[in-house]
């Protein structure tokens, strides 16, 4: 079976990902923000008749001469395709029809590689229709390429493209209508095919390259004289009335804070209704299971009701918050607001040693640090990129949300400030702010000792405002929720089952007898988990934690949210397992636990705050460590990250715990 490749290439923000989504049906995240695709995504297209093509969405690039990491990904794919030269790769070149001039550079470079290429005039709604037909004719007559018009956001032209890419790839080999020899592709000297890497650029190549680019553009300008695209309906992104406010030196920041406040209000106050619903439903299901199974299989009932169910419940309950978080991120990115925020904040972020573009990964860090660290690839300045990666885990990710949500209930009463703002919501926002402030402080320290390397400048395209595509508003959050349940969920359920086993059996117990219900469960303290936790206790005691929290800290190193599942399993095991009266919500179970010496509530203000601070700072995430290693290509940075964040967490918790005790 022949497997061809279709590379979706083009300038940043030309609508490649939207078209990729429309063609593949897989809804990869796109945004009205240049540089959202930083890695190439792949999707298999089945054309029937045993023909399968891989559709690859490349990061945007303006030329085949890369400067940033994401551009390197795109250029490597395209250049490699031309070197392989098996004639099974089609370039689907997407361009913004209202920015034809700029797209022509990339087209002319790829054309000179003799790769088959189909041009998509995207955002066709911005150009007058008769002009568009003229442009398509111009492409075939002057450039020797086949072009189709499309409006990927509205799904127009997608059918035509689907038909077009089914044709034999040879159809799209550029016709030889380009008069004169093409200018040399100077950037090819930089590419090292066996290694697949780009060599560092040298000064003389720099100069030669700019001469080549100017030369190409003068040819393009001459060719464009016969192209009827001079009038477009599109208005430039700036100036406009909305930006008078959103980019205002004072109001702009005010709006940003208000948007963030709204997001946190939604995350805490609004999400609580569906969350309560899910929790009650899971309790009801557990009760139901206990009623029908208890008589015949008491041992297994214990496993299901006390081990597995709390784990599943602990995962599902956070789905509403994750949905809301990603909903907000989609709206902010797709509308074009994010690029304004980057522009507005560049100066401030730069004085911290970061970059205006850092704001996107950092807000994304509220969702998850892992994709956000990858998203730093479009920051050209190495120093600013590394600093961003290093402080990113301090942005409170969605995995901390469950932990905060559970613990805040013990630290702050359920009241309202001014009758509108939930106190717990404000505390939550405070914790997020603490993360941000600490990130700023850490960035300032790192600015001093990270050495700059390679090019360093800030440049970002500000796109016109647009309404988010409505299907993205629910499809992207849903996809992330599914990812969370499948990915994190598996880990959490696995850990809670393992934990249940460790805490149900002890050195003095027989496993099978316990399962058959012949033997009672050992007290938690005498189980394997208890023994382990007790061994850990001296290390966490100065922070106000006991051995149960110690177990949770260990298990949540795999992923932070495991903390809640662990607590649910540990506390679910305590009390009389066969008495439904003792099976309460996790919160109530935790509230009824007391410190053994002082007989004070276990989760008193000091311990809870100490725990909150620990979770705000600690790098309890294996995936983050792994992705930092991949992105920085060394173990040095992830190790520094782990050490400094663990130190911050331990010191911070110790300080807060002792301060609380004094008060």
């Amino acid at each position: 079976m022949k497997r061809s490749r279709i590379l979706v290439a083009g300038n940043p923000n030309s609508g490649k990902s939207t078209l990729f989504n429309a063609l593949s049906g897989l809804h990869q995240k796109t945004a009205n923000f240049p540089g959202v695709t930083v890695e190439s995504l792949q999707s298999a297209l089945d054309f029937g008749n045993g023909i399968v093509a891989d559709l690859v969405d490349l990061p945007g690039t303006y030329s085949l001469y890369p400067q940033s990491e994401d551009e390197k990904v795109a250029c490597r794919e395209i250049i490699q395709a031309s070197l392989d030269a098996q004639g099974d790769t089609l370039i689907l070149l997407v361009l913004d029809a209202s920015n034809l001039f700029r797209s022509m550079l990339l087209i002319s470079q790829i054309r000179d590689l003799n790769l088959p290429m189909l041009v998509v005039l995207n955002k066709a709604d911005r150009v007058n229709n008769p002009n568009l037909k003229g442009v398509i004719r111009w492409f075939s007559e002057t450039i020797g390429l086949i072009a189709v018009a499309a409006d990927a956001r509205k799904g127009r032209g997608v059918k035509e493209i689907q038909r077009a890419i089914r044709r034999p790839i040879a159809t799209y080999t550029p016709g030889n209508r380009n008069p004169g020899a093409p200018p040399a592709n100077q950037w090819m000297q930089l590419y090292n095919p066996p290694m697949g890497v780009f060599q560092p650029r040298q000064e003389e190549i720099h100069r030669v390259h700019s001469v080549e680019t100017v030369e190409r553009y003068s040819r393009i300008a001459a060719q464009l004289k016969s192209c009827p695209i001079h009038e477009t309906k599109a208005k430039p992104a700036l100036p406009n009335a909305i930006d008078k406010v959103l980019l205002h030196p004072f109001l702009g920041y005010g709006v940003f804070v208000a948007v963030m406040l709204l997001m946190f209000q939604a995350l805490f106050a609004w999400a609580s209704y569906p969350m309560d619903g899910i929790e009650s439903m899971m309790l009801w299901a557990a009760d139901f299971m206990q009623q029908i199974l208890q008589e015949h299989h008491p041992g297994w009932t214990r496993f299901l009701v006390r081990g597995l169910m709390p784990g599943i419940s602990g995962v599902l309950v956070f789905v509403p918050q994750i949905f809301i978080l990603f909903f907000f991120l989609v709206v902010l990115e797709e509308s074009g607001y994010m690029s304004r925020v980057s522009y507005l904040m560049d100066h401030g972020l730069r004085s911290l040693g970061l970059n205006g573009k850092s704001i996107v990964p950092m807000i994304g860090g509220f969702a998850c640090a892992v994709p956000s660290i990858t998203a730093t690839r479009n920051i050209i300045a190495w120093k600013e990129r590394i600093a961003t990666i290093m402080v990113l885990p301090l942005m409170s990710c969605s995995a901390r949300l469950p932990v905060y949500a559970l613990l805040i209930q013990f630290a702050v009463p359920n009241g309202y400030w001014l009758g509108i703002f939930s106190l717990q919501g404000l505390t939550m926002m405070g914790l997020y702010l603490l993360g941000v402030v600490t990130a700023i402080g850490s960035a300032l320290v790192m600015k001093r000792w990270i050495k700059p390397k390679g090019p360093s400048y800030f440049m970002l395209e500000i796109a016109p405002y647009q309404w988010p595509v409505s299907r993205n508003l629910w499809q992207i959050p849903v996809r992330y929720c599914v990812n969370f349940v499948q990915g994190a969920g598996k880990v959490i359920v696995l850990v809670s089952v393992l934990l249940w086993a460790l805490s149900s059996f002890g050195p003095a117990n027989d496993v099978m007898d316990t399962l058959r219900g012949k033997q009672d469960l050992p007290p938690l303290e005498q189980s394997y988990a208890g023994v382990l936790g007790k061994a850990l206790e001296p290390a966490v005691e100065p922070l106000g934690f006991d051995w149960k929290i110690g177990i949770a800290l260990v298990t949540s190193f795999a992923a932070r949210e495991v903390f809640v599942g662990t607590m649910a399993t540990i506390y679910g095991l305590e009390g009389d397992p066969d008495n439904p009266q003792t099976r309460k919500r996790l919160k109530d179970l935790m509230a009824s636990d007391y410190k053994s010496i002082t007989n004070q509530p276990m989760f008193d203000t000091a311990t809870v705050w100490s725990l909150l601070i620990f979770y705000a700072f600690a790098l309890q995430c294996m995936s983050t460590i792994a992705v930092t290693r991949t992105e920085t290509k060394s173990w040095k940075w992830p190790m520094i990250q782990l050490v400094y964040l663990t130190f911050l967490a331990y010191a911070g918790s110790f300080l807060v715990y002792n301060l609380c005790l004094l008060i």
Partner: protein
Amino acid sequence: MDCAPAGKPLRVVRLIEGDLSLKLIEMGCLPGQWVEIVHRASGGRALALRVAEYVLALRAEEAKAVLVRWGESPLVAKEFSTLPLPEG
């Protein structure tokens, strides 16, 4: 360009060699092209530059690499001949 007036048509005279200039040239911000500063932010430390149909955010300090002239300024670049560009 960092001290050029906002809201006036500016003509790019030349770009001082560097990474940013190279990127700008690749994006079609060439000598001879008309551009316009459409916004200034952060107390003038960042600016939004319109080139043809798109808007770029730049740091004012780094934008110094772009030399422009405006009004009846007699400054004309000798080393770059003006390119025949479509009106933007």
